């Protein structure tokens, strides 16, 4: 029985909580070797398990430095650092000819994002963004209703992505320097990605955002905890996203996401994390989610593209460009950055064309 050569997948940092999810998904994928490094884990101000200890708990090979990680000559790297540290690692991966799956948001500034996309393009490496929600089966149905014309002409979208304060697991999510902001950074881009997919990559025209710091005020954060973002697209489509960290800490779940699209023939709404059996126990609410593992679908897409593309060749695009790609990452990052600026100016911001 012939065995395909194992793909070597590096995991750069456990800063993002999704890193652990990726490790557990990859453990179930045949013909994949995984190695991780989390050099900043020891500096984290929170008490979450990080570094070699977390690697041991997850059962994944571990090295102490990114130098050792890249010296292993991985085929692909999953960048799960704090947001502001994405750029350095993605540029390094591009230099070393390693395909990239980058956590969202792509970066904390559009300037960083543009540099990253350019570096990957020049190196011929895949740059895919970890937006798992577009892999939700319900979203495929929504797209089909739109593409087939059953929804009619889509004229308005409403998204919500409300979660608990992410600080419970990782403090950097509420650190302006490392995260780039608060709720506007954490939770606008997932819905923006879905809209990007529905519109075939339409760039936003104007972005208006209102934000405040009333939720979790006692935590004394310097980032926004509540936000409402309205985006206008060329052709008139409007979309509003509630990105607030408004899901109560007493809930049995982290939060959720909904997206409603309204067209001239009706509307479709998805809630990819809503499928569950509910109950009550002595300790409160029971929530048995049975939705599809979206990270598994996201990784399958990425790994397929990495296998098919093979070794990158500088100056040549990879054989397969898996979606969502760096351009999607940039367009959604533009919305995030404009939202931050608008919230500060208290006026809508037009995107540069």
């Amino acid at each position, binding site marked *: 029985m012939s065995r395909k050569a194992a793909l070597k997948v590096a995991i750069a940092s456990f800063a993002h909580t999704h890193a652990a999810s990726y490790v557990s998904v990859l453990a179930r994928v045949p013909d994949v070797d995984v190695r991780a490094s989390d050099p900043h884990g020891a500096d984290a101000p929170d008490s979450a398990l990080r570094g070699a200890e977390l690697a041991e708990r997850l059962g994944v090979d571990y090295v102490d430095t990114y130098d050792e990680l890249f010296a292993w000559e991985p085929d692909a790297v999953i960048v799960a650092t704090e947001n502001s540290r994405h750029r350095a690692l993605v540029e390094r991966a591009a230099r070393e000819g390693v395909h990239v799956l980058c956590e969202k948001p792509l970066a904390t500034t559009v300037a960083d994002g543009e540099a990253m996309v350019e570096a990957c393009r020049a190196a011929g490496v895949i740059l895919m963004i970890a937006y798992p929600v577009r892999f939700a089966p319900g979203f495929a149905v929504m797209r089909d209703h739109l593409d087939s014309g059953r929804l009619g002409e889509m004229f308005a979208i409403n998204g919500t992505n409300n979660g608990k304060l992410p600080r419970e697991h990782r403090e950097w999510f509420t650190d302006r320097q490392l995260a780039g902001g608060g709720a506007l950074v954490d939770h606008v881009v997932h819905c923006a990605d879905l809209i990007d997919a529905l519109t075939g990559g339409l760039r936003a025209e104007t972005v208006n955002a209102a934000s405040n710091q009333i939720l979790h005020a006692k935590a004394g954060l310097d980032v926004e905890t*509540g936000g409402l973002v309205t985006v206008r697209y060329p052709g008139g*489509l409007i979309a509003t996203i509630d990105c607030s960290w*408004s899901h109560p800490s007493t809930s049995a779940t982290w939060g959720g996401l909904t997206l409603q699209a309204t067209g001239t023939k*009706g509307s479709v709404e998805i809630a990819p994390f809503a499928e569950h059996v509910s109950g009550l126990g002595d300790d409160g609410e029971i929530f048995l989610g049975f939705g599809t593992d979206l990270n598994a679908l996201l990784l399958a897409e990425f790994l397929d593209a990495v296998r098919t593309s093979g070794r990158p060749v500088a100056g040549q695009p990879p054989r397969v460009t898996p979606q969502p790609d760096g351009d999607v990452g940039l367009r959604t990052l533009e919305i995030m950055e404009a939202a931050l600026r608008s919230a500060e100016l208290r*006026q809508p911001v037009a995107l540069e064309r």
Partner: protein
Amino acid sequence: MQTPTIPGNETAAESARPLVVALLGAGAISRVHASAWKELGAEVLVYSAAGAQELAEQYGLEVVDTLQEALRRADCVDIVTPTGTHRALARAAIDAGKNIVCEKPLTLSARESREVYDAAREAGVHIYPAHVVRFTAPYVAAHRAVVAGRIGKVAVARFFRGGSSPAVGTWFQDEAASGGIIMDLMIHDLDQARWTCGEVETVYAVQSPPTLDNVVPSFVSAHVTLTHVGGAISHIRATWGAVGTPFTTGFSIAGDAGVLHYDSTDSTGLTTSLHGAESSGLVVPTSALRESPYLTELREFAEAFTGGPEPRVNAEDGAVAVYLAQAAYQSIITGRVVDMNEFDHAQAAAA
């Protein structure tokens, strides 16, 4: 000012003569008003350019042929005509010294609303806008809980409302007559947001597709973002959707000590699946399980007219809701956030 007694007011039940209401208008919403007034034991005169006879026969009303006769004979006036006529009818009722119930929106523009508000106050006439959502059970429950501090300080709220478009070849499509989707439909939730989240500081609005040459698209959504005194922010969404879209409303109000959610499609307490049954098609928030909020509303207004306490919604609330709606249109036109402290209701152009 007359203080007629209405039946149901037990202290004066013996000597009670029915309250005489002049119902101006005989369109869709007149039916729920007519049946509520009859339920309250009122005598109803109906004056309308069209449909008065049919309405009178259905609900046992008396048709009157002139506005003058309606105003002369009535104790109070209930204006349920298309919005564009509210101002003139309200002025006529104020001049006749009659108390007024006026369907929302109070008038079509901030300037007119201010004018009617001032005229009523000067004449000592009560004018109450029929913001029925303030009398609708889930909204009342949420408002009370917020006021009582159940979810702490309000941070982020969302309100939505929508259904099958009424604007397919009707007067709703004429922005000069109906005021458009924000003035006609969203105004309910502009009032709710202000009622539950506090006075409004800024208004930002978008509409898709846009209103062109005064014609509101048949299928349209408007999104408004408000910032409130005290720091809360709210998002309000209204949709005139595809024909046949069920009418739904809902809200989500997040505070620093909890959240409240309501969706009219989830919390009905009554689910039917009866094949062949037809829906009424009327876009009003009624429930088979409790008293109509229109009845609650008109009872409270009637009691206020006869010396009872001030109702939960007053002329100022009606006028401010119109200011907010007009500020939203101003935001759509300018593409800017409108500061309500700088909003000039006298100068702002009509929607």
